[in-house]
């Protein structure tokens, strides 16, 4: 689990509005992408926790299968997940989150390297807040952060 300190506020008006940093749970099976996403989020003044797969993500959120032995659930403001993952996909993860009474209000953003309209629509219909195309850049995350922070208030 990673936590970041404030790296300094961005020049956008969004960060000056709010005192605390949003906590993002980033889920991706690709180690290079995880590193990039973590850095993008920290640079955008977000707290980051990364997970390698959907099962781990569910455990962090406190809605995994074996919840007796897991520590207290993380408080997250956003789940950012890759679509294509082995085992449980990002879409499955989205569904599980939206089915859960505790977690359904948390916005879920799906990322993918493939621009497949049917896939995008499927995710949005299931309640995904947004769909983002990889590779991710800082401008993508900054826009996302603005949107998420607006939703909090």
């Amino acid at each position, binding site marked *: 689990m990673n936590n970041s300190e404030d*790296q300094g506020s961005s020049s956008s008006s969004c960060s000056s509005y709010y005192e605390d940093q949003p906590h993002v749970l980033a889920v991706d*099976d*690709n*180690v*290079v*992408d995880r*590193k*990039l996403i973590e*850095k*993008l989020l920290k*640079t955008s003044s977000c707290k980051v926790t990364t997970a390698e797969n959907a099962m781990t993500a569910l455990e962090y959120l406190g809605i995994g299968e074996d919840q007796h032995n897991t520590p207290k659930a993380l408080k997250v403001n956003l789940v950012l997940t890759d679509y*294509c993952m*082995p085992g449980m996909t990002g879409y499955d993860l989205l569904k599980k989150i939206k089915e859960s009474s505790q977690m359904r209000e948390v916005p879920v953003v799906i990322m993918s*390297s493939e621009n497949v309209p049917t896939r995008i629509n499927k995710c949005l219909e299931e309640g995904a807040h947004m769909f983002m195309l*990889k*590779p*991710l*850049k*800082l*401008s993508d995350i900054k826009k996302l952060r603005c949107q998420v922070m607006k939703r909090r208030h």
Partner: protein
Amino acid sequence: MTNPTNDTTIITTNIFKLLKENLLTKRMSNRVTELQKEFVYYTSSLFDQGILNDQFNHLQLLQDESNPEFLAEIVNLFFQDTQKLLDDLTKNLEQENVDFLMLDKTLHHIKGSSSSIGAVGVQNACVAFVTCSNEKNIEGCWRCLEEARNAYNVVRSKLDTLLKIEQEIVAAGGSIPKPSVEPDEE
């Protein structure tokens, strides 16, 4: 009582010391400038050769004082990860019954990570490879694997060189030049 000769000697010594330091600083800053130019030209050449694309610029922008090693870290992660995956591809193709599903998954992974760091040569090699894999064309796959390995070896060697120049700049007390990127789309 002051000794004029001693004072003059001290002053002269100090002046010489300052001049020497200034000259050294000037030499050092010249060296930094030369290295920075080398860094910029070298990076530019990698773009021209189709080895890297704009995504690499975005990575460079993420490196700052709080994380001065970011570029080296993510590039080295990519090397470790991709090297292993290329070996997995080889092992897979060597099997009597090639696992095309696994092949596709592995290629998707390499395509993803190379795209994320801007290693467009590797990314393109994977795209071609996916086509051969989908056609279950094993001979074609072997050719594609060779292309992918070549593309990987090239980007590895070039980025190793680039990172060395970066290290030299830092050792000489300079800062890494930042690229400009495409303006944000609204």
